[in-house]
């Protein structure tokens, strides 16, 4: 049982608790926690000496995902008039069950993909798939725009876990580009949500046709 495995289990638990919580405040906290864990992953994964770039990257990701995103999401939450997801398309009990099924599928999936030996931990690719599935599932199963943005962030976390799990030599510039993209998306979604809530009095993406 090494450190990486323990972190992977924490990531599984953050995903499951995200699927089960309905309050935006709790969701934002969970997403922030997951972002911090994901950001610290490359520092633990590195098998050679850590370069200045890995520290910079970790610092950048922890700042963006652990501080900036929660701040932006909370800011949006204040400007819109909702506190919780009231009626998602799929209920919370069913969401957890689907989450567990997704976990099983992800583990099954990774047994069928050949990985090279230099892998962070045997559970890591499965957890990456699981995080990606959870993110996508949250995007399609939740009604409120704010939760959908969080689903997008979780989805991106999953891709990032996959990268660090396979110990892909991360180019600092590429990572920088990705984090900039994600940041811009969350930023723009915040503005969009503000306008949706101004026009409709809610951010329910299912009811955009009615006034």
């Amino acid at each position: 049982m090494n450190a990486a495995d323990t972190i992977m289990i924490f990531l599984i638990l953050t995903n499951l608790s995200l699927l089960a919580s309905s309050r935006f405040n709790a969701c934002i906290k969970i997403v922030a926690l997951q972002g911090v864990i994901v950001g610290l992953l490359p520092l633990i994964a590195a098998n050679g000496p850590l370069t200045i770039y890995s520290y910079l990257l970790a610092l950048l990701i922890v700042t963006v995902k652990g501080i900036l995103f929660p701040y932006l999401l909370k800011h949006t939450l204040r400007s819109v008039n909702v506190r919780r997801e009231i009626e998602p398309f799929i209920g919370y009990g069913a969401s957890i069950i689907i989450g567990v099924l997704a976990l099983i599928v992800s583990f099954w999936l990774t047994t069928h993909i050949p990985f090279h030996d230099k892998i962070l931990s045997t559970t890591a690719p499965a957890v990456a798939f699981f995080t990606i599935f959870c993110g996508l599932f949250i995007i399609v199963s939740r009604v409120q725009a704010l939760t959908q943005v969080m689903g997008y962030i979780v989805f991106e976390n999953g891709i990032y876990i996959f990268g660090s799990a396979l110990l892909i030599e991360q180019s600092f510039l590429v990572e920088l580009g990705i984090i900039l993209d994600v940041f811009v998306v969350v930023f723009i979604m915040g503005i969009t949500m503000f306008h949706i809530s101004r026009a409709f009095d809610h951010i329910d993406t299912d009811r955009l046709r009615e006034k």
Partner: protein
Amino acid sequence: MTDFSTLLLRAHAGFLAALVLAPLVPGIINRTKAVFAGRQGPPLLQLYYDLFKLLRKGTVYSGTTSWVFRIAPIVSLTAAIGALMIIPCAGASPAIISFQGDIILFAYLFGISRFFTVAAALDTGSSFEGMGASREVLYAALAEPAFLIALSALACLNNRISITGIFIASTENPFANIAVILLTAVTLAIVLLTENCRIPADDPNTHLELTMIHEVMVLDYSGPDFAYILYGSSLKLWAFASLLAAVILPVRTGSFMLDSIVFIFGIFAIAAAVGVIESIMARFRLDKIPKMLIAAAALSVTALILTLMRG
């Protein structure tokens, strides 16, 4: 290697200790709650006094009840005693009865006891008790998968499918897989609280229609029958607490006495923890309890997957 008669003697000693000490556990829970609330609380031995008092009294049976109502307390007490016979007192020695797959027997002995309690509650013909029976069955149906999956995770982790085997293997190789052990421990703790009708699933103190689940089903019992039920539920609490204690406290010093003392104090510590939980938490809304149990099942499935992946 200790010889067979010593092992048998130890198994019986552990079993007797459980039978004698079990009514102390609710006392410890109540005392912890009293300390938290700044009260003096009932004496630690209150349940013993209650049991002796009830055993001396006569019973009253309602005219609508049949034989089902009369045998239910005896069946549930017998089932609880039977379950205690499968559980070793400490990791160092085997239980009185042990065979391959007795984890399933353990789960379903309590299933039998629940079936008879529920049938007896329906037998009284009271709509109030019928409601309690319905809730009890709902939560049991959700707690059962969580419990069985957690047990199978433990069985896979230790490569044994008997409770004695799991207990001994987990002391031989303590904390082999800390994550799996933590996940199963949390699941077992949630199942313990639900199955034994403690907060947050059920409030053992209230006699209000809205909150009662287990208490309501035994309202019609009196005298020795009620004593059997109270004693049976304290044995059930002991059985679940010892399972949890074996998972989180795999101590093996080599001496049977010392192991047993540590184990029994572990159970008392779990009782105190239950008391703390009851003091700092409110009872969940009824529709939140299934969610909690589904979450517990999700944790145990995660634990099982992690054990299976490890091979």
